[in-house]
């Protein structure tokens, strides 16, 4: 097991290097950081001096090696836009994105799994058809439209919930959390729903399909014939067997939720990593973009690892094979 984790960690370093390399080869096409850093009145001469100082005239491969070398030493550099240390900037934005992602995931699981089970067990019910129709709409509308609709209904028209930002946050050490204040939860609700809708639909449909599949299998029929109570049959036997593929997909999706919360964060001015990344693109803030992409790559690797470990925990067959 330890060997397995170590192997994955080593792989992750290569994944991150590859991402950094790809990112760096693309940065040259994003634009010129110097024109974004300086005012219109700054002379061409001063711009050139700054370009030289920042090493932007160096060959691409040299810039890449310097970036990765510094990162390996734990030096994440300074933002071109704000001159802050990039590590601090990203670190201060992680809680917002992480909490948003987790709450979105929770919403999608808490609603998606029961809804999936229900629609699988009562495939012809009116409620089932309604749920399926609604979620189909939910998954077809782009995230930003859902976000703006929610903002205008609950923020502007009804005035129940804030339209932007994180509201009141509570600090636990360096971690700024929305989860401990009413204000924080009020602000979190709409973005989390927006981000979770797609996940929710996916979870529900996956659970439904798997559940229907499992319900047709021999061992369930056999259990039914043995007179196992329906409740125990549904939730203990059937659902547990449904969850293996569901966890895979949900786990992999969670990486995507964190990475691509950019749209939701932009619509709600949610001060997470995604919003920081968007601002950084606008200002061609190469150090921040580079570190962000590497961090996201690391996160994907981590999520994959956790999914693999969860497999082992849920599916006894894998435990035996691994030994």
């Amino acid at each position, binding site marked *: 097991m330890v060997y397995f984790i170590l192997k994955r960690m080593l792989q992750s370093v290569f994944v991150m290097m590859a991402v950094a390399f790809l990112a760096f080869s693309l940065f040259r*096409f*994003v*634009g*010129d950081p110097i*024109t*974004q*850093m*300086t*005012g*219109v*009145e*700054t*002379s*061409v*001469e*001063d711009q050139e*001096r*700054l370009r030289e*100082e*920042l090493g932007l005239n160096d060959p691409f491969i040299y810039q890449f090696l310097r970036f990765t070398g510094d990162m390996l030493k734990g030096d994440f550099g*300074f933002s071109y*836009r*704000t*001159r*802050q*240390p990039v590590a601090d*900037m990203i670190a*201060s934005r992680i809680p917002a994105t992480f909490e948003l992602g987790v709450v979105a995931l929770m919403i999608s699981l808490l609603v998606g799994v029961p809804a999936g089970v229900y629609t699988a067990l009562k495939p012809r019910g009116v409620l089932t058809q309604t749920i399926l129709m609604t979620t189909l709409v939910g998954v077809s509308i782009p995230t*930003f*439209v859902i976000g*703006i*609709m929610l*903002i*205008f*209904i609950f*923020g*502007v*028209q*009804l*005035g129940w919930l*804030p*339209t*932007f*930002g*994180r509201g009141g946050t509570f600090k636990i050490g360096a971690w700024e959390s929305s989860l401990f204040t009413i204000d924080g939860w009020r602000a979190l609700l709409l973005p989390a729903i927006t981000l979770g809708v797609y996940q929710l639909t996916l979870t529900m449909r996956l659970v439904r399909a798997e559940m229907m599949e499992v319900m047709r299998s021999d061992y369930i029929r056999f259990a039914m014939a043995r007179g196992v109570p329906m409740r125990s049959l549904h939730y203990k036997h059937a659902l547990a067997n449904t969850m293996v593929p569901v966890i895979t997909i949900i786990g992999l999706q969670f990486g995507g939720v964190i990475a691509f919360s950019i749209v939701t964060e*932009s*619509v*709600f*001015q949610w*001060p997470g990593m995604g*919003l*920081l990344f*968007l*601002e950084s*693109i*606008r*200002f*061609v803030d190469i150090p921040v973009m580079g570190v962000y992409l590497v961090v996201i790559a690391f996160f994907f690797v981590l999520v994959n690892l956790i999914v693999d470990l969860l497999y082992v925990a849920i599916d006894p067959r894998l435990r035996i094979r691994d030994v």
Partner: protein
Amino acid sequence: MSTLKLALLGGALSMSAMGATAETFRWASTTDPQTMDPHAVNSAPVLSFLNNVYEGLVRRGKGMSIEPSLATSWEPLTGENGWRFNLRQDVTFQDGSAFTAEDVLFSYQRASDEAADVRSWFAPVSDVRVVDEFTIDFVNSAPNPLFPDSIANFMILDKGWAMANDAALPARDAENFATMNVNGTGPFTLESRDPGVRTTLSPNADWWDVVNHNITEAVFTPIGNSATGLAALLSGEIDFIQPIPLQDVAQVEGRDGFKVLEGEETRVIMFGFGHEHDALLYSSDVTDANPFTDPRVRLAAAHAIDIASINRVLFRGKIEPASQLVPEGISGFSKANSDRPAFDPERAKALLAEAGYPDGFSFGLKCPNDRYINDEALCRAAASMFAAVGLDAELSTGPVRDYWPQLRADDFDMYLLGWSPGTFDMEHPIRFLMHSQDNERKLGSWNFGNYSNARVDELLPLIQQEIDPAARQGMVDEVVKITQDEVAYIPLYTQPLIWAAKDNVDLTQRADNFFMLRWVTVN
């Protein structure tokens, strides 16, 4: 998206969340100031924001005119070129230390250092001398009547504070203390700063000037997405936002409790040409010549533009057509040359035929899509107007971060540019846009097509040095006449400023798009 918003807004009439207290003023804008250091970045978001915290020797009033600030008066030096500033006494910085001429000298040294982005303001300065505690001389290398006007955004910080906190120079690579902290003399002081998220200001109780605002706390939030910003205003979570998109004006105006503030920005939008290019880069038919080197072709392009239609269709009648590179009201505006080429497609075709292109030709038109109001739509409209006279524009648009490098690399046949005169004088666009490119003397740095006219080059230093207003205006008129006759640029219009606020907020909209908290009252 906008139809959806409209539909959603249509039914939304009730205002339920207008609970914000009167004294806490919340506002939003699209861009967060990059730094709190007044000398590190010469950008509008930074200078606009910091003008609430720091002050200069002079400042601009509501109508953009120069008025005393930390200097109570100033006069030309006798016997040499330059200006003497008499400083205000009994002014203290926000940390309580006294303001003296030493702070001005220090701030000058700091702002003119290589690490400062604002150092171009001090190019005419050859020496700065402290005469006594409250008198300081700025010596200029040549007569410079506009010097006091040109340093309205030169903000003074406290020498002792900067030295004690290792902030003697602006941060160029890593941050320093002044990136996140302030110590100015201005009406507001920084309470907290979370870059990109929230910045809070509170009034400076010891400010020297008469307080005209009634704010006890001001909270700034950058909101990049315009739909989110509008929702934040309409839900009552913010009191004021700058700017709002043109297409949202009707929605704000249609609701009780909100108002739209409209004004003219000083930014003139124009088309520029690749004057010194030997051949067109993006033409499918003329590849061995550059027709735009012929003034008749440039004039034909100018006659092809129907500015009235652009105004009506794209800008809801909110733009002011421009005849030259500054709008009327800016000093140096040439009243003698205030006519722009009329919309006249027949004349355009005739001019093209005369120049040897009776069937027109194709060329590449470059435009940004995130820099000016409706910039991409404008270029599409202009391209179809050009096409109507035979000028077949191959339009390519892109974000501004990618756009300036293309223009610098001469990668265009024709391009769109907006220019706001930083000094609020015609000399500014002459220096940056009309004088030939001259990196050594730092002239013509935004004259991408390198328009070059020996007489214009000759007149610029004379204009810069002329003390007599009438003689100066005569020379400016000559430059404007030459550049109009040669169609160096096609000035199109002055861009509107569109802000939105709650009805109970009174504020002043200044033509440089700066927002001053000291003029805000919440009723």
